[in-house]
């Protein structure tokens, strides 16, 4: 460090936050723990994941409905895997339209590290985590549906 230049130093911030969730999101997370997928009724149809408030009207969303944990890839982008990512090899981030819903669900899709296997319109299903705790990562990722 030359005289007159600025000193600099590395440091780390950590926020060990705990966050309260709303009633629909709380039920959705509890459902994931039981390997069940829920959506909420909104003006445009069922939205999954369920939002507390309708994205079109701002009103509270309606009742929760149970959904089959499968859907169709609407859009995807290829990502290199980092430590702690949902998939331990390169994977896709995707918007997955869960069957019976209006809209899509953002999550990871595992195609064995091969981007040429990704297609808009491909069928995928939820791969559940073994040790589920009741949050979004209880869905490990989506995988190709046979």
């Amino acid at each position: 460090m030359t005289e007159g230049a600025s000193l600099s130093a590395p440091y780390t911030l950590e926020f060990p936050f705990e966050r309260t969730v709303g009633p629909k999101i709380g039920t959705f997370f509890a459902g994931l723990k039981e390997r069940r997928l829920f959506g909420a009724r909104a003006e445009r149809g069922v939205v999954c994941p369920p939002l507390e408030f309708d994205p079109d009207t701002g009103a509270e969303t309606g009742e929760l409905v149970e959904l089959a944990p499968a859907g169709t890839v609407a859009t995807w982008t290829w990502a290199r895997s980092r430590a702690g990512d949902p998939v331990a090899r390169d994977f896709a981030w995707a918007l997955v339209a869960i069957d019976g819903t209006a809209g899509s669900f953002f999550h990871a899709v595992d195609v064995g590290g091969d981007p040429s296997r990704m297609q808009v319109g491909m069928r995928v299903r939820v791969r559940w985590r073994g040790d589920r705790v009741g949050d979004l990562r209880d869905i490990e990722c989506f995988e190709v549906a046979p």
Partner: protein
Amino acid sequence: MRDVAVVSFAQSPCEAANRRDDMAGILLPVIREALGAVGVDRDDVDFFASGSHDFFEGRTFAYIESLDAVGAWPPVSESHVEMDAAWAFAEAWSWLQLGEGDIALVYGIGRGSLAADLDQVLPAQLDPYFLAPLRPHRDALAGLQAAAMIDAGLTSERDLAEIVVRSLSAATGNPYAQKSGHLGVDQVLDAPYVSTPLREHDVAPVGDAAAVVVLAAGDAARRLGDRQAWVRGLDHRMDTHYPGVRNLTRSESTRVAAARAAELAGFGASEVDIAELHTEYSHAEPLLASALGLERTVVNPSGGPLAGRPVTATGLVRIGEAARRILDGRAGRALAHATNGPALQHNLVCLMSGEAAA
């Protein structure tokens, strides 16, 4: 509406990593330049508004340090937004509309280089229940948006490469640009993917810079120079938070903000000579051009954010660059756009003219 104009603009060069200056050190020369150009003393400024973000600075209440560059003693009237400084500009404009004073100084500081890995930081701006826990890569949502646009036939990788080539070429005339050059389309298309279909040059290079805009009302504005960039219309709107319930190929919030700004201005986005758009990714240009109804307008003559993205100063730089072209007589009417949030969630449109409202 009160006549309010941009009378001065200054910025610091966008640097990939400034390891020399603290916040006040980056900002102070830029404030001096902006005020000096119109002969305004700091004591003549009625209101200071600023924009920056603690998550980029890595400290809570980080912006307090920047007040050392405006002189906070004796106490000044000031306000800060924790977002792009274009929204501080919107606040200062509103404040002048209320008749609280005649001269306002808006500054933005963006330090994109202090975070060791923006992948750690940018998830903090996302939905905390359904997006942040997945820690998407910083460019992942933009990649999805670009992919959706290509899938819908609204653009192509080659179109995006042409936007990059034009932007970086324009930036060769911009001494504040972080990145510039005369690249070939094939060269751009040979660069590696960052987040498909976005490649290296489709993603704005993040850096550090400050920007300052001086706003003045009515006679004060006329007194301060021969030309003014009158803010004829300004509005900002938001799309819903969760990307899965948005149509990512459209920007409804931009369209509505532009319509409201046009209503105030008496002219629309399609009638401007130049537009400075806050394009953090190349695909944002066709998306915004469509929402704004731009056709033959010159877009991002400064090179735009693809030539340098000083995070929370980027939107204010767009306003400054657009105003500058009116102030120096190269444009009669100009549009500036700024954005916040993932995949163009929140959008601001500002219409300016060399002529005040009749």
